[in-house]
């Protein structure tokens, strides 16, 4: 009994710290979004929700996060399998290739992509050289360019959680499925895919919640006219001195992220209940 209590106490410093430095400030921000000079009011939310522009910005933010997550999943899911099949030094090299990009600042990555994607850049030269396109494609300041840049940042956060689940799957399961007469496709979709779902949920949650809040990359690759919830928050606070609008946009972004976190917790619990 005392020992269990003792172990529970170990969580106190981290919890207390996060409560005081992280949760309380967010709570106060929520309070601030509900107040103005005269007292309590929902005016901030009313005017935010009444404007078509705000809905546009929110829609664009969600669209960007969904597209980024979908692309990362489409590339990252199969890549995680190949990573789990690779052996020894090759696997270590592949993992290093996934980890090393995390050391390059997002800011510098964005500049790297402007060099790669410009009309006389490497990507256009490759595309034209291979005959896929006749003339150079304009990527800079387009949504395609933004998606390339943002996927590039978050892809490792999709591959690694899925990989760490796959490498724990017993390879004999596939053999068992085929011994029992399942064709490879059936065996894969009915046996392997469900087992990888915890990794998929972890990866999707991470990538979605990070890309919905992305600020630096959209600002650098698209400029000011491409407003997302994050850029709205930044401009409201840093340039427009309109803290209420910023707080409201902040709370809306916060709620969207909390929904994602909540959904992942519920899904994770379901998967543990029915493996």
């Amino acid at each position: 009994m005392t020992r269990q209590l003792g172990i529970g106490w170990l969580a106190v410093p981290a919890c207390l710290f996060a409560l005081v430095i992280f949760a309380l400030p967010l709570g106060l921000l929520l309070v601030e979004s509900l107040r103005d000079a005269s007292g309590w009011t929902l005016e901030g939310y009313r005017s935010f929700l009444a404007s078509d522009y705000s809905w546009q910005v929110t829609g664009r933010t969600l669209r960007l996060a969904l597209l980024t997550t979908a692309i990362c999943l489409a590339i990252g899911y199969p890549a995680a399998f190949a990573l789990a099949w690779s052996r020894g030094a090759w696997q270590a090299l592949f993992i290093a290739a996934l980890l090393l990009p995390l050391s390059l600042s997002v800011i510098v990555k964005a500049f790297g992509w402007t060099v790669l994607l410009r009309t006389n850049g490497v990507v256009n030269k490759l595309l034209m050289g291979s005959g896929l396109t006749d003339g150079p494609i304009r990527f800079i300041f387009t949504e395609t360019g933004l998606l390339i840049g943002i996927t590039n940042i978050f892809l490792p956060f999709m591959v690694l959680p899925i990989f760490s689940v796959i490498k724990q799957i017993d390879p004999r399961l596939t053999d068992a499925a085929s011994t029992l007469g399942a064709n490879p496709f059936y065996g894969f979709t009915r046996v392997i895919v469900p087992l990888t779902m915890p990794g998929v949920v972890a990866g999707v949650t991470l990538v979605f919640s990070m890309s919905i809040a992305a600020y630096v990359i959209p600002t650098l690759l698209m400029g000011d006219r491409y407003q997302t919830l994050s850029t709205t928050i930044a401009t409201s606070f840093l340039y427009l001195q309109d803290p209420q609008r910023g707080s409201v946009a902040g709370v809306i972004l916060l709620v969207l992220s909390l929904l994602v976190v909540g959904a992942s917790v519920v899904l994770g619990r379901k998967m543990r209940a029915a493996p």
Partner: protein
Amino acid sequence: MIRTLGQVLAWFALIFSVVFLLAPLVVTIGVSLSPSPVFQMPDGTISWRWYERLVRLDGLMESVLLSLQVALFATIVSLVIGTMAAIAVVRGTFPGREAIATFLVSPLMLPGLVIGIAMLQYFRAFGLREALPSLLIAHIIVVLPFVMRTLTAGLSLFDFALLDAARTLGLSYPSAVLRVMVPVLAPSFITGGLFGFLASLDNYPISIFLTDVYHRTLPIQLLQYLGESPDPTVAAVSTLIIALTAVLLVIGDRMVGLNRMAGV
């Protein structure tokens, strides 16, 4: 047939991912070695002029040192309190363990700008106006989720009977932890610490609200510099950080094996 097709697809996706992820690194290293003052890959000749300029540039090295200092401090504190919390969550039997785990990982998944603004207003309200302590405190929140994630995963696979075995063999509890648990959990410490350290080093959305003129972290300085007078010095400093990380990865690989330290 279907199986072969699937395997080809998977390998293609992996090779594509590796090339795609390394592309901006190759460009950055290339640009840093190019004699051209605009962002261009070197054509034939390489030059070290941007590395020489690096030390002379006002404020750049200061911001590198500040960022390293903040990231190191936040990582050490997070490793200590994060490990303690992870042990409590994995080993404890009290209610709400899962909620605590989610709570301590959540800063990673909540918008950085919102956290940054909330902290700014909160710190100001309590009279904390100095940039350095604000940054040191705030960055613990940046690093802690990574430590928490990897350590709860690592600890749930750790066999705690090993500790009892070590104590039966005459080790005290603290030295059993130090000599048995720490080595077994080394991959989690290294992965969580590295991810958190790099996230702190590159944090822009929280830091932007907490820095002042004398305390600019590296990302803030980089963005300002690129806005004012873009030249490949930025690529040179980034290349040095890539090289530092590569060294850390090699050390990590030698100590625990990269394939064991990949879980996020």
